[in-house]
């Protein structure tokens, strides 16, 4: 039976990994007034504004993973 859960989870996972790679690289763009600059400005949204709903999902997954890591550390520390 087709289960979309696997596909969407892997897609989000891939997006998180790509995000990490991009964050690790130096992504300073040259100053300019071209379309690339405008697109990058649009991407720099903060707070509750997201370009796509999936960005919110990615953020939520990252938060939950961090929470899980903290929980596991706590559990290991207590034992």
């Amino acid at each position: 039976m087709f289960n979309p859960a696997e596909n969407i989870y892997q897609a989000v996972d891939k997006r998180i990994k790509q995000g990490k790679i991009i964050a690790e690289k130096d992504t300073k763009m040259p100053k300019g007034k071209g379309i690339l600059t405008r697109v990058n400005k649009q991407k720099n949204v903060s707070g509750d504004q997201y370009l796509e709903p999936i960005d919110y999902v990615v953020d939520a997954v990252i938060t939950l993973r961090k929470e899980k890591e903290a929980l596991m550390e706590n559990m290991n520390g207590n034992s």
Partner: protein
Amino acid sequence: MAIREEPPLVAPIPGMSMTHEVGARPWQTPPQQTTVQEVIAHYIERMQDDSITEQIINILQADVPVTTLANTIQLAGVMEGRHSIDVGVLVIPVLMEMIMLIADAEGIEYATGMERDKEAEVKDSRILAGISKARKELMNGKDEEEVLVQETEEELAEMPKGLMGRR
């Protein structure tokens, strides 16, 4: 092949979905929550409830994979008319992560549903290779169109001839 001994009486009757007026079912009405944010907040709040947590643990201990459980939860939300199916599919990763968090916190082992069965994959590829080899052998000496006509005739003969199958 196993022969079914009893008729499948538990299956839905053909046309059953049309026994209510359009819009009378919750999933046919506009969803209560339309954004991913709202839906995620709803599920996270619900999954923090002790009774829900216990149910999730019991289901995971019955070897139900996390993917199946997450998909079932979101489908139930669609059936209740809480959110649309596309928003439901979008929130699946969050549901899966939350389920895995609950399971890890309780220290139980679970199947994610994403484990690869390499042996089965190899078997599948062998079957596919066998089918294409057999097809090529069958095609030897026969025209492609002739084979297609033969296959179509066979498929037509196998088609159901019940009330719903009439043209």
